[in-house]
Structures are given as C-alpha cells and as structure tokens.
C-alpha cells in the first residue's frame, strides 16, 4: 500500500525517523506553498524574529525586551525555570497575547497575522479540547478552521490520529481522555495541515516514557522535512537530544542563546590518574589550567577539549605515567544551573 498522506511527513514513531525519502504533500495548501514562485510566505526570512519583545502583567514583567531569531528548519529549544516567561513568549508569537512593547515577525509576517497562522501548528501548555466532541471530531473541526479542502479531511484526520497513537480511541469523547491522551490529541491537532512552524509548549509534560520517545522522533522527523520547531521545555536532556539551538530565559531575560556546542563551550572537565605526582609533573599540569587533587585523581576544571592529547603527551614526555583519563563533558543541565547561578 502506498501512502501519500500529509502525515507521512510526520516521522512515524514506531518505524524510526527518516524512514524513506519525504513524500510530496497531498494537502494542496502545503504543496502549493512549496511550489509557488517568489517569496510569498517570506521564505527567505527567519521563521521567528523578535525585537525587544516585552510583556508586563501589572507590575510583573513576564518578558523583558527579548530579541532573538529562529532560522527556518531549525529545532529551537526555549529553556528556563518556572515563570521565566516561556509560555508568554509563545502566546505573543501566536497573537494570543498582546505584547506591551517591541515587535516580532513569524514566517515573515507580523505576529497575529491571520493568514500566517494557517502555516503554524500549536500545542499549548494547557491542552484542552471540547470535551463533548470525540477525537476525530476535534481534528475535523480543526481541518475546518484551517480551511483544508474538504476531500483531504478524512486522510488528514486519520493521519493525525495515527501519529498521536489515538486511532483506536477516535470515537471516544475527549472529556473521558486521560491527560496524556489529551496531550497526544493536542499534538495531532498541531500537526494538522502540515505546518511550516510547529510550536510545542512542554509537549511531553503528560506523556509516558514511550510517548516522550515518540515525541523526539516526531520532532526529528519534522526537522528532516525542513520544518521549524519551537520547543518550550524544562527537560534539558530532551533539549540536548533534539535541539539545534537553544535560548535560556530567566525572569523574562534571555541569558544565553546559541548552538549547544556554543552554550556548553569548548571547555570541559577532565579527570586524570597519574602514577606519581612530582614537582615536574605539577608544573606541566599547571600549564593546562587550574587543577586539584581528588584522592588518586587530578581534576582539571577547565581544559580545552582539543588539548587533552597534548596534556597526556606532555606528562609522558616529562617522564610521568598516565593510568587513566576521563573527560567529563558538561551536560546542558550543569550549564543551565551554572547560568542561573551566575545571575
């Protein structure tokens, strides 16, 4: 059976990511946009570009002049502690909340632009759907709201149900769904109509480990197909696995932005076990930065990753013996805590 459905573009979680080449979209809205000439959707522009975006709730500053840019086809992780302002930023980008200041462009149009929202999928942090509809009806409603051509609805609904793993519950009322099932439905809704930009606000907050794994596959699948993903998350391990770039937000201020490599830096910690540590040896160690003893081990706090072989060569050249070397890469979590500490 050959499947040429829009949702085949969503990675199929159980088949692994990137199985087979991307199939052309069967949703005319999608293929039309892709085949059209010129730059109708502002394709040359970044997916998201914010300039001094600001939001105040009474005295609370939720977002303080945030400037950032998310490129097309990027998986962008938006990290930050509770109350940092992540959800507020997302809501402003979608036109659900009015900024108190600044401006932003999404897919080349000013935020809140109605036509542009056709090309954006959104899974809110608070995912609730009409409890008196069943899952298939919720998806059909969103097909209508997206103004997808009527003949593509059945396929689009079926695909979304499959990706969200709800096919066998499609006739059940959403009001009776478990939290995780509702979040899965929210993902199905967000992926309807093959959006160019998918905004996910803590998409795995209610998911079981299998669901989290599926979500990562889906995000990777979206990237393979050139879609942009904006991912709000607390799960740093998750961000580390799927994101190309991240920004760390704290109290409404972006305190770090960059690729993971940039953020984690070229410096790492390394543990070395030496046979004997004599005077000449300590001299050599000191050339590579600050170090300290930890029992039999020597710990070098900040050493450039590239110079670890040089360190080993230098010690051996100086007559020492190297019994073990353990480079300890800084995890995103360590870096995250460090960043928050520095403030």
């Amino acid at each position, binding site marked *: 059976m050959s499947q040429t459905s829009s949702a085949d573009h969503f990675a199929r979680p159980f088949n692994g990511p990137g199985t087979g080449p991307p199939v052309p979209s069967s949703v005319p809205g999608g293929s039309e946009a892709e085949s059209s000439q010129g730059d109708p959707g502002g394709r040359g522009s970044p997916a998201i570009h914010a300039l001094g975006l600001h939001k105040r709730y009474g005295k609370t500053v939720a977002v303080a002049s945030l400037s950032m840019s998310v490129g097309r086809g990027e998986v962008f992780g938006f990290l930050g502690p509770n109350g940092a302002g992540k959800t507020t930023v997302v*809501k402003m980008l*979608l*036109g*659900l*909340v*009015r900024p108190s200041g600044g401006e932003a462009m999404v897919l080349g149009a000013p935020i809140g632009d*109605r*036509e*542009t*929202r*056709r090309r*954006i999928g*959104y899974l*809110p942090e*608070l*995912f*609730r*759907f*009409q409890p*008196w*509809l069943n899952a298939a009806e919720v998806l059909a*409603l*969103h097909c*209508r*709201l*997206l*103004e997808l051509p009527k003949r593509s609805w059945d396929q689009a609904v079926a695909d979304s149900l499959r990706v969200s793993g709800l096919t066998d519950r499609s006739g059940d009322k959403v009001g009776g769904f478990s939290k995780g099932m509702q979040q899965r439905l*929210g993902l199905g*809704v967000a992926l309807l109509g093959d959006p160019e930009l998918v905004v996910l606000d803590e998409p795995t907050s209610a998911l079981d480990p299998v669901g989290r794994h599926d979500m990562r596959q889906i995000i990777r699948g979206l990237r393979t197909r050139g879609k942009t993903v904006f991912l709000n998350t607390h799960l740093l391990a998750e961000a580390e696995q799927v994101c190309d770039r991240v920004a760390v937000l704290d109290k409404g201020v972006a305190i770090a932005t960059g690729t993971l490599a940039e953020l984690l830096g070229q410096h790492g910690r390394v543990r070395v076990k030496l046979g004997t540590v004599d005077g000449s040896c300590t001299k050599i160690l000191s050339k590579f930065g600050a170090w300290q003893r930890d029992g039999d081990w020597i710990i070098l706090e900040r050493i450039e990753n590239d110079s670890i072989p040089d360190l080993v060569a230098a010690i051996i050249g100086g007559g020492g013996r190297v019994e073990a070397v353990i480079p300890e890469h800084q995890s995103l979590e360590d870096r995250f805590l460090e960043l928050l500490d520095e403030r």
Partner: protein
Amino acid sequence: MTFRILTIASLTIREAARRRLVAALAAITVVMVGLSAWGFERLSHSHSLTSGESNLAVPQALILFMFMFSFVVALSASAMASPAVASEVESGVLLTVGARPIRRSEILVGKWLGLAVLLAGYAIAVSALEMGVVDAVSGYLPPSPVLITVFLFSEGLLLLTLALLLSTRLSSLAAGVIGIALFGAAWLAGVVGSLGSTFNINAMRTIGSVSRYVLPTDGLWHGAIYHLEPTSMMAERLSEGRNADPFFVHTGPSWYYLLWVSAWFVIVLVGSVISFERREL
C-alpha cells in the same frame, strides 16, 4: 468570513445538543405547557365564571403564562451565553481555536449566531405550543401570535447579547448572575415607571423611561403584552382609566423605540467584539 462564522455557530449548536441542553429545555417546556393546558381547560369550562368573565380571564391568564415563559426564555438565554466565552477561556479550549486562522470577531459573532438560532427555535416552540394549546382548549388566540413570538425572542436575544458581552470579561458565574440581576432590575424599573405614570410621580416615571432605554427587555416585554391583549380587554381597561398593572399596556412600542433597540443590539455586539479582541487568552 461567513464560512468561519458558520463553523463556530454550528459548533455552538452542536454543543447545546450534545450537552442535553436542548433535551432538558424541551422536557421542562412540555411539562409547563401541559400544566397550563390543564389550567386553561378548567378556567374556560368553569361554572363559577360567566362567559364574559371567562373571555377576559383566559387572555389575562395567558399573559401571566407568557410572562413566565418569557422569563424562562430570558433565563435560558443568559445561562447559555454567560459561559460561552468565559468557560472556554478558563479551560483553555480557546487557545487552540484562537491560534487558527480565524478572527476573534468571527469567533464571537459565530457564538452569538449559534446561540441566537437556538434561542429562536426555543422561543418559537414555546410560543407556538402555548398559544396553540390555549387555542385548542379555550378557543382563544391572540390577535397577532407571530409578533408576540418576535417580541419574546427579541427580549431573550437582548439578554443573550448582554450576557455574551459580560462573558468576554467576567467568569461564567458572574456574567450569568449579573445578566439575570439586570434583567430583574429592568423589569422592576418598568413597574416603578408605570406606577409613576399612574400616580403622576415624576421621579418614578423617569426611572421607568431611562431603564427602558438602558436595557430594553421590559420595553420588549410590553410589546409582547400589547399583542397578547384582545381588543375587548383593551376597551375595558381604558375605560377604567388607571394603569398600575404591570401586566397591562395600552400602546405598543413606537417605531423609534424599536429603532433604538436595533441600535442597542449593534452597540452591545460591537462592544463584545472589541472586548473579546482585547482579551488575552
């Protein structure tokens, strides 16, 4: 644009049907109409009333029953409209809908339209049932049943529109309670006004006429009464000269009053759209 409005309108109607609102209203209405049928049957065949008395008593009783139904229609209108926006903002349902390529105004007008259709269906069903039953039992049919239905519906629609406006800013509960309280206050102010004109007390008269413009529910109810009264009753009451009865009027609403009511709808509906557009989800 119409397509999107109709999407929301049909969703609203489907919700009322799914949540058994329609079924519940239908059941209550059948019970009330049945009760009134029994009452009218007794009244028109009572031996203690002369036929002249009975000819007056039946329309009088019909006015009272229709007042009760107008109250039920207005309460239902307020109960349906007050959670329409508020509960969906509170629950977060509007986050996903609002992120779609649909204008806020289309969401709001769609909801208003869906609720208005439900209300119209209900007003028509109630009026037709009640007046039909009374006609069948006692042989009395008011002069213009269609106009009565229109006034009954407009009165409900007014409260519906007001409750929807309140719903864009307040919680469902607050919007519902305030809507119904204002409806009661407008009715009371109408009574105060008619007492004022009977006994020539200017301040009371002013309260009545101001409230008729601020919230025209009572003015529309007067339109319904006017068309419920048979000509014989009109003649008798006018000869009595006094008019302190809140269930009697001797003139229908003027065309400029009806024009104001139309303007009122537009103003409140536009106000709701603006309020909802500014609402953060």
